[in-house]
């Protein structure tokens, strides 16, 4: 019986496919550069557009993220298990931290009394400095 390792030689790697890979990488990279350029340009968009700007930025961020993950990291072509693992991590992080952010920001004032605008009525301690250690 022959082991598979023996039959496996570099000749088995079809160069045209790797070439294909290289070609696509150029395309993806070009798209990433264009998107990033567009992102940076939002910096100069009028101030009044901030809502549009933010939405655009988020959309472009997601696109870039997806492009790198799908093509550079081969997630699009690899085993579904890997995709599930990673996407699960991302979704979990998003859900959990959106929960934190909303609980810490707009939900805080969901009560009948608004209570997170406490005036700083007391003096502020200086930043802690440790006494020299013995």
């Amino acid at each position: 019986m022959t082991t598979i390792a023996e039959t496996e030689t570099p000749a088995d790697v079809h160069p045209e496919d790797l070439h294909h890979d290289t070609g696509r990488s150029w395309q993806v990279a070009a798209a990433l550069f264009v998107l990033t350029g567009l992102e940076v340009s939002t910096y100069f968009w009028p101030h009044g557009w901030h809502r549009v700007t933010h939405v655009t930025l988020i959309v472009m961020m997601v696109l870039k993220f997806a492009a790198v993950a799908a093509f550079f990291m081969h997630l699009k072509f690899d085993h579904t298990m890997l995709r599930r693992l990673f996407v699960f991590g991302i979704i979990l992080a998003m859900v959990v931290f959106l929960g934190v952010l909303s609980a810490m920001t707009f939900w805080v004032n969901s009560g009948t009394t608004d209570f997170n605008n406490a005036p700083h009525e007391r003096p502020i301690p200086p930043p802690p400095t440790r006494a020299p250690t013995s």
Partner: protein
Amino acid sequence: MADTADTALTANVGAFDEPFHQIDFAHEGVAAGHQTSTGISNEKLGMWTFLGSECLLFGALISTYLLYKNRPGTITNVAGEVVGQVHDRISEHFDILFTSASSFVLLASSLTMVFAVVAAQRNDAPRLRLWLGTTAGLGAVFIGGQVYEFTAFVREGFGFTTNVSTSAFFTLTGFHGVHVTIGILMLLVLLALSLKGRLPFTKSESVEIIGLYWHFVDVVWIVIFTIVYLIK
């Protein structure tokens, strides 16, 4: 007997129609000598698992920054004296053009990393070394840019301890910087192994796995760049 083994192998790869993948996969799974329940090598699965957990790490850091970025404030005591150094938000002092140049550098390093992986899979050692070196170099440029940016902030009066928004900013970008640095070190190790002839074709998967890490660091920067730098 060989038939049975082949059947198993075909079953492994048969689910994937992409010719690109088939090659990639077949040679990794077998050349590295692994025959696992899923057909994915342990190292690759391990790296992806680790990256899944890193999502939560950066999620925590980014949300800490988001919570704190608007919390500087003038800090005085009752006597009206300023206690602690007070500045406005660090985000108003970003040099977007400089940082976007850094971002382009990091994106470019992802592209060169892809070339390195392809070279490894082609068993093209000279190209592999070239692209590993380029990737590490671009990473180093990025880190250099980050160091420059940090010193610029400190010169402007934004230190790590200035207020909570600067602490959060430096912690987040610092964590990312440390990840990039570790990535550079791993690339250099690969480069050294390759130069010493100890990165045979059968180990080309190592390049791919470290490539995964490198791309992940890049994706994290994509998020940081948008959320921290661009969204005001």
